Every structure is written in structure tokens, then in C-alpha cells.
């Protein structure tokens, strides 16, 4: 099983830095969880710019184009899942699909993704007017894409596979004004919900539905993270107009909380797989019950009953196998992430 996780967000929001820090942290393992690239060269490609960032104290060059790599997530040397990581230049969101190959691919990637990780600059959210922050984080464009490819029931499908996990990464949290950090980032969360209100409103509406499954198809959460750690970067120029604030690294970086949004995305999608399996088990049980109602039916349909019974056992075994993996991944992340809808 391969999950597809697409990372996107506006330009200058910190996608590349986040990716580099995440892969660096997860390459050696954290809380028993570890990421391995499909080949050694892929890992090197990510680690080299991270090294330049740590030693040379230089922000990685802004991304041009699109990048896709395959990784495997392990929990204590046990394979949990393969996942395809797709990273974009921020501008791919703001360009019509017929003007850029990246934009066209981003639309396709979102359609195919199991989970999306949206990267937004917490400092911009906190320090700019809400309407400016919306434009600079591209939150309206993000909602537009998700709405077109994932939220509309006729496109996404009403079944379990129709939903998507949304993890919102709030970068540059170390630089936030103190009032936004107070009460466990309460003010930041409030303003983020305002800036990303399109996505928040959609998830909120889904939650209100009374169907047994529908409200749970869009797990959504956010978390402030820091690539450099508190006090290790300072603002050199405040943002104005189109320009975002500039930062300078003043000490060696120490990433904080970068792995949780990623684990949240993976964990919840594994959980969706388990949900599908559970639905299958329920369905098989109902069919078995119907077939075994009287002796005559049991005699006439003995073979079918045996086959269904074997299938049910198989699905249940797969479910049992998946359970500890979900616990290992989502159990860690879901404790840390904050709900997008309070």
C-alpha cells in the first residue's frame, strides 16, 4: 500500500525548509518511527541542502518546479507504509493549470492524494491583516483547489475513500510575538481559523452531518512548528506588500515538532484503511447471517458460507495487523495536533 501525501502552500511559507527538517529528523528516527528513502541518492539530495542550512546558515533556495519521491515509514524496523511525497513551488497554486505544468500537476496530485499537508507562515498570519494573510498564505487558493477536487461530493465520492486528511503546518512559530504564543498558541489558532475559514467551514459543516461515516471523512488539524527553534533566528526585515518578512539564522537550528503533522497525515490515512476494512467485515457478517438463517440454506449454500467466512477472517486479520501501526503513528501525532475545527 502506498499513500500519496502532497505538500503545498503559498510561496515563501516554508515548505522546503519544513521538508528538509522533517526528512532529517525522521531519517535517524524519532519516537521509534523512521523514514527511509527509496534509494540512498534521494536521501542525499535532501540532506545536502539541510547540511548547507545548518553549517552555512543559508536558507535553502526557493523551489522551482515539482519534486516527487517515494519513502517508507518504519516503526521499530517494521514497515508501516510506503508513501509518495510531492513538493511544489508555492506559485503553482496561483497559476491557472493551462499556464504551468506544475499547476496542472498540482491539481492532479490533489485529486489523487490521500492526505495534504498545507504549509502556512505563522508569522505572516500573526503580523499581517487577516485579508493580507489570506492572500500571502494563499489560503483562498488552497480552499479553491480542495473544494474543486476533494470537497464536492460528486467529485470526491460519498464513500470512505472520498475524504482527505488535512494537516496544517504553521511554520516560523519561533518568531511569533509572545501574545500569539500565550495560552498554548490560542490567539494564533483563532487567527489561523479566520485566515483558513474556507477549509474550516467545510470541515465544520461535515462534522454536523448525522450520517454514521460522513462527519469523520475529513480529519483536519494544525500545529505550530519551528525549523530553527526558539531564539535561533531573528527578523531582519518586516514584511510589507508582497514581500514577506526576512529572517536570519543566528544559531544552529534545532527543529521543534516538525514530525507531528506528517505522522498525523499518515496515521489518519492508515485509520481510513482500517475503516474500509471494518466496513468490509460488517458487510461480510451481515451476508453470513442472512445465508445461515435456516438449515436448508446452510446446506444449499455451504460452500459460499465457507468462502465468506474465510474472507471475513482474512480481513479481520489484516485489521488486527494494522491496529498497532495506527496506534504507533496516529497515537503519537493525534495527541499533539490541535483541531482545525474547535
Amino acid at each position: 500500500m502506498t499513500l500519496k501525501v502532497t505538500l503545498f502552500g503559498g510561496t515563501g511559507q516554508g515548505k522546503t525548509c519544513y521538508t528538509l527538517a522533517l526528512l532529517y529528523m525522521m531519517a535517524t528516527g524519532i519516537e521509534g518511527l523512521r523514514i527511509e528513502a527509496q534509494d540512498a541518492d534521494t536521501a542525499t539530495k535532501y540532506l545536502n541542502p539541510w547540511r548547507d542550512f545548518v553549517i552555512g546558515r543559508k536558507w535553502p533556495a526557493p523551489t522551482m518546479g515539482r519534486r516527487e519521491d517515494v519513502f517508507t515509514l518504519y516503526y521499530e524496523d517494521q514497515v508501516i507504509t510506503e508513501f509518495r511525497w510531492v513538493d511544489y513551488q508555492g506559485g503553482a497554486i496561483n497559476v491557472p493549470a493551462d499556464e504551468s505544468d506544475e499547476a496542472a500537476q498540482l491539481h492532479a496530485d490533489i485529486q489523487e492524494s490521500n492526505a495534504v499537508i498545507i504549509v502556512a507562515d505563522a508569522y505572516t498570519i500573526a503580523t499581517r491583516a487577516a485579508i493580507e494573510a489570506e492572500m500571502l498564505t494563499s489560503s483562498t487558493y488552497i480552499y479553491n483547489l480542495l473544494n474543486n477536487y476533494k470537497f464536492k461530493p460528486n467529485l470526491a465520492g460519498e464513500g470512505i475513500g472520498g475524504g482527505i486528511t488535512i494537516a496544517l503546518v504553521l511554520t516560523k512559530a519561533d518568531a511569533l510575538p509572545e501574545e500569539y504564543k500565550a495560552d498554548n498558541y490560542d490567539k494564533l489558532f483563532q487567527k489561523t481559523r479566520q485566515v483558513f475559514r474556507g477549509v474550516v467551514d467545510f470541515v465544520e459543516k461535515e462534522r454536523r452531518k448525522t450520517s454514521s461515516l460522513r462527519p469523520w471523512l475529513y480529519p483536519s488539524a494544525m500545529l505550530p512548528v519551528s525549523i530553527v527553534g526558539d531564539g535561533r533566528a531573528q527578523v531582519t526585515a518586516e514584511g510589507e506588500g508582497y514581500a514577506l518578512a526576512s529572517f536570519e539564522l543566528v544559531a544552529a537550528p534545532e527543529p521543534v515538532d516538525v514530525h507531528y503533522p506528517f505522522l498525523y497525515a499518515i496515521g489518519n490515512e492508515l485509520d481510513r484503511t482500517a475503516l474500509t476494512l471494518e466496513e468490509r467485515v460488517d458487510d461480510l457478517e451481515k451476508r453470513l447471517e442472512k445465508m445461515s438463517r435456516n438449515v436448508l440454506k446452510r446446506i444449499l449454500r455451504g460452500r459460499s458460507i465457507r468462502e465468506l467466512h474465510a474472507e471475513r477472517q482474512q480481513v479481520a486479520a489484516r485489521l488486527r495487523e494494522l491496529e498497532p501501526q495506527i496506534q504507533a503513528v496516529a497515537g503519537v501525532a493525534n495527541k499533539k495536533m490541535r483541531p482545525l475545527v474547535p
Partner: protein
Amino acid sequence: MQVEAFLFTRSQRRDFTAFVRPAGMSNRDVSVIASALNNVNDVERLTRAFPALYGFPLGEYVYLLRHYDSRRRHAGRAISVVEGIAVRATWARHFALAVPYLIAHQAEALDIASSVGDLELFAPTLSAAYELPEHAAEIAVPDTAYLDDFVARRLEDRLIVPFTSGGLILMTGALAERRFLSPLYFAFGTNRDVIAAFADAGVSFDVIGFVNAEGAGFRSRETGEKTGEIAVPVVEPESESAPQPAADLTAMRPRAVPLRAPIPPRDLPPAGGAADVPESERLLTMREARRQMRALQPVEPEPPRPAFDPFAALRRLLRLIVGRRE
């Protein structure tokens, strides 16, 4: 020679985009170049005076591009520029002869950014084709033995040079060499990831100037193993105002020479290789063949159905029960 311009960079308002592109350049081609050059992490090392240089065919064009740090910043990060010129594949042989001269005069010949004015106000546009005066150049290479060697082993080996003025002289010396049967393609001031990304898109280079390479030599195309060494020319100290590779490209001191004979542009088949066959000889798809076959088969009229005869049906049933056949 008809050329078109290419300029790929970003402004504060607009993320990386092809502000100017040749009319026949697809979004996919832009993406190939962007994604490949995205593998350059340390763009600050590439300056306007001594940029990375690329010459390669892609889609309908052959490109000559330079890649350097614009010194502009976005959110504190270096913004790179990829710019240059492209010619339709029909002009490829002309272009190959002009490349050494264009490299030596890259400051003017490949400068597209200056022509667009304020980038913040500039909307992406298609380049008009314009005439570029044709020049060839002779490059003064101290020892030409490596050229004899390269002509003989080009199919098996690549020429590897350092990203220095000396390396550039070796590369342009090879590009100016007329014994090669087809144009040489090159990447100068690059790394393995860029080369691999271009290779994924089907672009292969004959001469590579690695940023980290210290010496020059030949390397097997197949295994990457070193198969020969070349002495790198020492550039005169007075021409190097700053330590290499920040030196200016004019250190090459090429001598412009006229083209020996005008070469008419060649009609090439459309992209994809062989020319189209006449419509009557075109291979059919499976569905087309099936349709054609069905259309050729004579349609037999259906026999009229007999009226229902209850006695006949009863007889058939009896025959079935007793097992007798007609």
C-alpha cells in the same frame, strides 16, 4: 539565425515562472528545466559574470542558457535567474557553430532580464523571433591533444571539466572543434543531481563542468569511471581579478571568425523522429482495424422468424424428454 528568448525567474509578486519563452516551448519543457535546476542548492556561487551555462536540445528547440544568482531576495532567500536564447531544431547546426562565440559574449548575448524592464510590472509573454548576427569563434587552447582524443572517444566518454576559467576554455575549445559530426551539448557549473534530472527528461550532455570537480578528464558514459586525464589551462593572473570561479568569462579571449560557408537551415522531421507517412500507409490502431474489418464484412440479412407453432413446441419437448433426435 533566428533566435527566441527565454527568461525564467521570480518577482516578489509572482513565483518562478517563464516570463519570456519561445513561442513553441511547452509548459512541460519549462517544468523540465525548472525541476532540473532546482537541484542547485548553492545558487549564490553562480554569478552574472561567471554563471552556470547549459546547451541542450529539448522539445522543438536547442537552448543556450545561463543560470545565476540575481542578488534579489524573496523572504531572505536567493532568487536565481535562468535566461538565454533558443533556436528551432532546424537551426541546430548554425547554432552549434555560434555557441563558443555566444558563450564568450554571454553578458550581452544571453542577457534577457535587462530587456524586460521592471519585473514586478512585467507580464509573462512569448518571445518574438529575432535575427542574431552569426559569428563563430576560435578558442585558443594551449594544448589541443585532448580534442583529438575527444573526437575519437566521444561516443563512449564524456569530457569533464572544472567550473573555472581553465575548465571553460577546455569546454569552449571542444565546442568550437569542427570535427564532431553532431553538436556537443554541455552543462557547465552543475552537479550530478541536475544531470540526473535532465537525463530523466531524455537530455544527455557531452561536456560537463561539475562545480566540485578539481581536474579535467574523460569519464565513461556508461560506468562514470575515469578514463583519462587532461591538464587544465592556467589562466593568466591579470585576467582573474577575483579567485576562480568568480572570474569573468572574457578570460577566454576568443577570436571571432566568420563562418566558413553559409549553411542553409535543414528541414527536420517533426519531433518524435521519422517523418509522417502518407495517410494511406498509416498504421491503424486496434479499434480502427476492428472497425475497418467490420465495415468490410458483408451484412447477411437475418432469416425471417417462423410464426409460433404450439404443436411443434410440444413435439420438441417430447423429443427432449424421450431423448430422440430428429
